């Protein structure tokens, strides 16, 4: 299955504020080139979290095939397409060069959140279904993991034209690794990526892979 990874960041979450002024955090996470681009951006914190989300999305994508791949953020190098580097656009494009290969990148940057999507090719990324949603309630009454799983399953149910109850998200018993989806007890081939941070939750999957895992050989 083509790799897919996504990551959302709530720009107003307490730990995410004014991070561009945290030189030790930036030094540990970003390359010198990335730090220079962030420092010169119109919205340094917005671009900082866009770069962070890009690295996270890319790690999620490459770690599916290689769970032991290194997760050192500086080894995931974000390269924005020419013209994007000021970070003023609402939508950015580029690539992430990872220890597991190069991935295509799309970033959405708003006043409230940033969302990054990484996939194996331009063709793959154009096909991927992605959503960012404001979590209902926004308080501790809503479990963020349950919320994002529910949002994902509603979208898959709509596409498969089946009741949501026919679907469930499963993880490895150790809680690690990428989640998978069961349809009436059978594992779907689709690789899904889930993310949540603060007030927001996001998911991504390739609709072309909503078939039984048994059909993929």
């Amino acid at each position, binding site marked *: 299955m083509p790799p897919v990874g996504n990551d959302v*960041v709530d720009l107003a979450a307490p*730990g995410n504020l004014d991070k561009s002024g945290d030189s030790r955090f930036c030094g*540990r*996470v970003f390359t010198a080139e990335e730090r220079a681009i962030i420092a010169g951006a119109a919205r340094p914190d917005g671009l900082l979290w866009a770069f962070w989300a890009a690295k996270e999305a890319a790690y999620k994508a490459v770690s599916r095939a290689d769970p032991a791949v290194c997760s*050192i953020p500086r080894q995931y190098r974000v390269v924005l397409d020419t013209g994007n580097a000021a970070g003023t656009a609402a939508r950015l494009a580029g690539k992430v060069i990872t220890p597991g290969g190069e991935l295509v990148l799309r970033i959405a940057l708003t006043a409230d959140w940033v969302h990054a999507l990484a996939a194996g090719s331009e063709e793959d990324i154009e096909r991927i279904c992605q959503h960012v949603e404001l979590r209902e309630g926004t308080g*501790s009454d809503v479990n963020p993991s349950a919320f994002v799983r529910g949002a994902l399953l509603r979208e898959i149910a709509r596409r498969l034209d089946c009741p949501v109850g026919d679907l469930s998200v499963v993880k490895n018993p150790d*809680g690690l690794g990428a989640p998978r989806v069961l349809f009436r007890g059978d594992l779907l081939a689709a690789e899904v990526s889930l993310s949540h941070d603060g007030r927001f939750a996001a998911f991504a999957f390739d609709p072309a892979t909503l078939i039984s895992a048994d059909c993929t050989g």
Partner: protein
Amino acid sequence: MSEEQITKKIIDILRGYVKDSALLEKATPKTHILKDLRVNSARLVDIIIKCEDVFGTMIDDDEADRIATIGDAVLLIQQKAA
């Protein structure tokens, strides 16, 4: 510094980043910082920086990459103090 003292200090550091304090009450060396304590990856970077300050040491990228559980963090600090 004993293993018990290091563990206590690491738990104290984690307290500033774990929203549900009940999760820390039942923490063990095998407790996974991201999955079990629901700490996000960006906060894990902050935790590593805080560990450098509290224990007066430098933690490089490869060492940080090996920290998944509380036990991993305790072991690393022990090794660096030896």
